């Protein structure tokens, strides 16, 4: 009985602290039609939604208000999320962190590019981007959701740590370029796939493509399964590259 009471007390305490975290957030709404890019240089959680509206919903830790700058750069049609330079605190005292990130909700249909140099979690509720989509990371980026869809091309550029757990990458051309650590899983309908690696890879993709090109001077494990009409691999690194399951008889 004592143990059950203690467990209930602990659960209540953690629920209270979670709601306390949310209570301590402030919100604002920006409006901009046809947003093309998102640039984040501070810890951010981004949700791409299915909404057809032009509104961008932002929430941030209340005590971070004077230290951050969030606005739409109309010239580049870009949402900028960054530190306010004139009030820069030391990194240790900065009130925004991966545990208390900026939270942004954006309608996706016009988005083309997402750039991250800090800690980002990107969740795709709605998968459809513009004709092409580029996600570039020099910090730490985790991508979750069912799928990403961009008719012409999807490009992932990484020099930091990117873990991409999307189940599908639907496009005509898929490009993976990595000099850091890149985890890519799922399946893709791309007819042309190009992977350039000088970093550490953990790739496991099911494909149905006409052309697969891999250039590797890095390390890690690269595995392609499914079907490919043409495969071209150049490797001077120590990566384990497996394509034997392609076109398996």
């Amino acid at each position, binding site marked *: 009985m004592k143990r059950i009471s203690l467990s209930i007390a602990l659960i209540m305490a953690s629920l209270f602290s979670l709601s306390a975290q949310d209570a301590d957030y402030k919100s604002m709404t920006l409006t901009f039609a046809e947003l093309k890019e998102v640039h984040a240089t501070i810890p951010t959680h981004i949700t791409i939604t299915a909404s057809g509206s032009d509104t961008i919903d932002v929430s941030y830790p209340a005590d971070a208000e004077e230290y951050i700058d969030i606005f739409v750069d109309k010239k580049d049609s870009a949402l900028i999320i960054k530190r306010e330079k004139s009030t820069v605190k030391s990194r240790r005292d900065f009130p925004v962190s991966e545990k208390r990130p900026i939270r942004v909700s954006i309608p996706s249909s016009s988005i083309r590019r997402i750039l991250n140099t800090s800690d980002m979690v990107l969740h795709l509720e709605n998968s459809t981007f513009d004709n092409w989509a580029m996600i570039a990371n020099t910090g730490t980026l985790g991508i979750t959701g069912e799928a990403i869809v961009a008719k012409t091309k999807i490009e992932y550029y990484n020099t930091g740590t990117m873990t991409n757990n999307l189940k599908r990458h639907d496009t005509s051309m898929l490009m993976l370029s990595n000099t850091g650590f890149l985890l890519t899983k799922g399946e893709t309908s791309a007819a042309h796939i190009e992977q350039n690696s000088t970093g550490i890879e953990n790739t496991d993709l099911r494909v149905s493509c006409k052309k697969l090109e891999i250039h590797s001077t890095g390390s890690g494990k690269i595995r392609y399964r499914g079907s490919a*009409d*043409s495969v071209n691999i150049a*490797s001077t690194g120590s990566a384990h*590259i*497996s394509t034997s399951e392609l076109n398996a008889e």
Partner: protein
Amino acid sequence: MKRLLIIVAMVAIAAIECQAQERIDELLNRELNGGTTVYRMAVKRDAESGEIIKRVRELRSTGNRALSKEFLEAFDAERESADGWEENRNSNARQITAVWTNPKRIYTIIATGSTLAVYAQTIYREERDDK
């Protein structure tokens, strides 16, 4: 009894011929792992059914003597089962072309020291003349 022995012998020979290419195929299918390696593969498909009718693979490697040795040993081990065999050898290099007719495969290896090139062509069925 005699007929049964002939059938068993033919089945055994066919199995050995399949295994011949399997050893070389196994090396070609093995994951690339270190060294300087280029691997290319292309398939030709039946336009209607999508079925693969021909597959061509090429593996080039430099600086990996152990891999060259493994491939040469695989070719040598299967010499007896090949339907055609042509070899050129000098002090530094070996070139072998081996042919199997059933199934139809043409495998070539050129090994010079630690530089290796392997070409493997597999023809699953002849192309149909659609004209």
